[in-house]
């Protein structure tokens, strides 16, 4: 400990210090007077009760007194963001805020405040568990919300390659099939129709022009497939029986006669481009999109599992 320093000359004569001491003594006495203490306590309690009652009855007693700088309004403590206001005003009036007049500004702000109030009221009345649309919207919102974090950065080249290898089948072009589909109308004489169709098929195989052959043997072009069609479309238009025979052939080849309810058919292939696998380099952007979507799905599944694990779900015996 330092030795007490000699008192400075100044303190000897200093009246402010004396004054302070006196003041302290007075205050001590004032505040330790029991009646006065009771009174002060009582006034404080009444003031507190009034404040609390006001808050309880009006919901205004607890309001935030200031609007934070990023907001244009506070509705029961929830901000209406300036950025949202600016955007909504622009999309409603079609002009930037600077060009909107006071009435337009006021209208949009009023709408946003009303919307916020209604949303808050809806939560109060537990709208989500009553209204099916609100329920759906909530489900969708949670689904997307849990997966937003899936895309905060780009996957590495290796991760993409692995994904591509695992899902190779998804990365190919669609096959294209072009055919001329001829039918020998069965009508009253199915036997002749079949003979005609068989003869036509043989002639085309031997190299004759399909259109001429068709005319010669009374075959009609059904026009079911026009030009080159994607495999799935050609399959729908031709029907499975004709499609499966035709798709196995090369350009310039022809099927045998295939009997169908409307008569025997002969299908001549004008074009057949099978699907081609897309190289990683070419599919890369598609792989990236699929990779991200897959990741999102996985995160949603995890969320589902997490919610189930922590939830208390009881299923009746009969329904387990």
């Amino acid at each position, binding site marked *: 400990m*330092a*030795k007490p320093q000699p008192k400075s000359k100044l303190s000897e004569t200093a009246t402010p210090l004396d004054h302070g001491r006196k003041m302290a003594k007075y205050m001590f006495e004032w505040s330790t007077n029991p009646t006065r203490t009771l009174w002060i306590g009582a006034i404080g309690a009444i003031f507190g009760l009034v404040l609390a009652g006001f808050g309880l009855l009006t919901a205004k007693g607890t309001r935030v007194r200031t609007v*934070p*700088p*990023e907001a244009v309004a506070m509705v029961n403590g929830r901000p209406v*963001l*300036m*950025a*949202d206001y*600016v*955007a909504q005003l*622009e999309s409603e009036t079609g002009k*930037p*805020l*600077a060009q909107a007049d006071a009435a337009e500004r006021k209208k949009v702000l009023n709408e946003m405040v009303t919307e916020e109030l209604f949303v808050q009221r809806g939560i109060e009345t537990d709208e989500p568990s009553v209204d099916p649309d609100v329920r759906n919207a909530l489900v969708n*919102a949670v689904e*997307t*919300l849990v*997966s*937003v*974090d899936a*895309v*905060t*950065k*780009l996957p590495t080249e290796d991760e993409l390659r692995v994904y591509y290898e695992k899902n190779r089948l998804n990365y190919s*072009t*669609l096959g*294209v099939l072009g055919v001329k589909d001829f039918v020998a109308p069965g009508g009253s004489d199915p036997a002749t129709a079949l003979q005609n169709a068989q003869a036509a098929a043989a002639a085309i195989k031997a190299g004759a022009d399909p259109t001429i052959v068709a005319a010669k043997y009374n075959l009609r072009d059904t026009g079911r497939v026009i030009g*080159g*069609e*994607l495999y*799935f*479309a050609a399959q729908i238009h031709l029907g499975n029986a004709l499609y499966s025979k035709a798709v196995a052939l090369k350009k310039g080849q022809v099927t045998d006669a295939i009997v169908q309810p409307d008569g025997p058919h002969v299908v001549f292939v004008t074009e057949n*481009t099978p699907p081609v696998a897309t190289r990683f380099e*070419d*599919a*890369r*952007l*598609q792989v*990236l*999109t699929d990779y*991200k979507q897959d990741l999102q799905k996985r995160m949603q599944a995890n969320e589902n599992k997490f919610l189930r694990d922590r939830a208390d779900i009881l299923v009746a015996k009969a329904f387990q």
Partner: protein
Amino acid sequence: MQLLPGKSRRWKLIAAGISAVVLSLVGYFSYWSSTNAAMLRLLPDSLPSNPALYRFAVAEGHSVFNQNCASCHGRDLQGSQTSGVPKLTDRDWLYGEGRLSEIEQIALYGIRSANHRTKNLADMPAFGRQKPYARYDLAPLTTTEISDIVSYIELAQGRSPDMAAVKRGIDLFDRKGQCFDCHGNDMGGDNYIGAPMLSDKIWLYGDGSREAIARSIEQGRMGVCPMFKDKISPAKIRAVAAYVHSKAPVPPPAD
């Protein structure tokens, strides 16, 4: 005996030093937060015409960008054509025209992200798939049809493709593919729904070669920019928007 006064002087010095540091920290912090508040209180689009605040915002925004956006957009804001991340330093905006308020909206809510305020009005359909578009019905296109449309786009690019193919391509662009609906009759794009211009030399995906263009048409595209609303503070969002804004050429004044 001489030691003691000396020691207490040292203590006084240290105390003075500490309080100076604390005071200047408090001072800096209150300057910083009041400047942030002032920056936020302005309408986003009037920030650039307030040089002191704009400079402050751009400086703050630089580090926010490096921490949150550079992983995709690159520290130099050049993006990546192999991943479909747009360059942010050109005047070719997918959305809007590069105003600070527009950039701030994207920083807040992202593109095709999980918020009702996100930009999510259209995607590029995958015309090589059986069901090209999830939002409404569109017919798929064959490889030959896609190739014809690419020839038409090449013509708009100022190259010299086969004119017979171009003729077929125009018809496909205007009818079966309904490309005009999103990209415009003149291929000028639509910066409301984020459909890029196809007649300029700026490509979001790939290098603009025939193959790259065909791949976009065949595979479809739907780039995602994440939302940052609840991840970083409003002040940081405003700052990063200012930073991006400062890196791109100023759009011509609105008339």
